């Protein structure tokens, strides 16, 4: 694998990627039990209801866990190494994997406040996260 990996935008996740093309981050909410989740699914993983709706997310969240990757799985990512691979917990609850960009890897920490930014991969804007300045000041104060 040498090219940029691109997500499949077909199927149940279609509206997620359509929103991403408009610079918006969305999640699914179950109309039965109210559970908000990602990645997109055909039914609610809590109650199995299939009546789901799309909601807009604030795009803000916190780093739940992260790693600085030095040895990458492919040439594409080795050119970016060292890069930060993280799990971000959104304000609305769902978790997403992403890279934390626009910051020195050594400054990333658990609970760091981050906001979504989109990286173009060919035709597809892929969600990534970058620190919110205030979050950085909080970190310095600790």
């Amino acid at each position, binding site marked *: 694998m040498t090219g940029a990996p691109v997500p499949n935008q077909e199927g149940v996740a279609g509206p997620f990627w359509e929103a991403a093309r408009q610079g918006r981050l969305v999640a699914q909410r179950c109309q039965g039990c109210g559970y908000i989740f990602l990645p997109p699914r055909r039914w609610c993983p809590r109650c199995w209801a299939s009546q789901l709706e799309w909601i807009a997310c604030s795009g803000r969240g916190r780093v739940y866990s*992260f790693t600085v990757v030095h040895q990458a799985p492919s040439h594409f990512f080795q050119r970016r190494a060292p890069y930060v*691979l993280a799990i971000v917990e959104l304000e609305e609850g769902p978790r997403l994997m992403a890279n934390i960009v626009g910051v020195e890897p050594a400054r990333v920490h658990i609970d760091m406040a981050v906001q979504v930014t989109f990286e173009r991969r060919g035709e597809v804007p892929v969600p990534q996260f970058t620190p919110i300045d205030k979050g950085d000041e909080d970190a310095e104060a600790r």
Partner: protein
Amino acid sequence: MPRGVAIAAASELPPGRYPHMTVLDLYEEAVSLLLREWHLSPRMIDGLLCAPAGMARGEETDIFTHERLAYALGLRPTFAETVNAGGATYALMVQRACWAIKEGVASAVLCLGAGKFPSVSRGGADAMARMVSHPHFEYIYGAYIVPLYALIARRFMHERGTTPQEMAAVAVAARQWAMLHPHALMRGAGPLSVDDVLASRPIAEPFHLLDCSVPCEGGGALVVARDDVAMEINPRPAHILGWGEFHSHGYVTWAPELATAGARWSIEQAYARAGLGPSDIRVAELYDAFTICPIILLEEAGLARRGEGGRLFAQGHCSPGGPLPVNTYGGLLSYSHTGDASGLSMIVEGALQVMGRAGARQVPEAEVVLVHTYGGMMAEHSTLILGRRR
């Protein structure tokens, strides 16, 4: 009276490189070794469990492995299948054999495994990344096995206070045990220090190269049998006192309990079935793809207090001569990781310890041994408790 079940026989090929052999050849090599080491005859065996040959290599996975091996062995079993749960495969085989035997479906089940770890440098890391990560929501960010486990490690360190030095001590203890095992792959590399581990090159923080298990090739075999059949094969079998199973998540990002991966739900079942608790365990064999894993599992098994698993390793408690020996064969970290067959190594060792056949590394007090294995990205768990007495 309920029937007991035991591991009657256990054999494992020396881990290494077998370039002239296919995985199916390795299966046959493992069977040959079992037949040389134990007195077995085809009439004793009426069950056969295998893993899919070629699984971790992502090429030509053979889901009919049990049919090919039943043919090779001249068996016509009443109970047979090819089963997979990654590293948890073999402990699950032992459990399934227990059920079949207790139901009277079989009386002695041959459990076989062989594997070749894919070459990480020649595209193997990417092939495995595609297998274990979500294709559209994880893979595209440069996720693969080491960083996915690093995410578990970082969260566990955050919640429990484990340090990189304590993780390095797990690799040091594994090497100490490996020095006592004639087949451990890293035996010849000599002892390790905490500083050696911390000075090895970073792969995905907090993991250095020496925080990761050693890839190689190998295979092995177990005979799980009803007590009376087991005693015919081996007068000191490893009685299976308890077992547990739990499947926690499909992908790391959405694991409900990221720091501990849900391991305790499997371990608690095993304790309950055995009617035993942490204070009864004399030796623990804990699947150790990375140094953080035995620390997590010690705490989840109640063998260390919350946040103190790492300290036990750092203080030498889990090393040879310590009060709680862990991974007495050198672990996947220093004995080595045989790809698809890795989950067999710690069961073979647990059984040999209970049988009193572990040679220079024998722990005299190995009356009751806990074996915990997991598969996927620490997603599926299987626990066994083995004992000298029923």
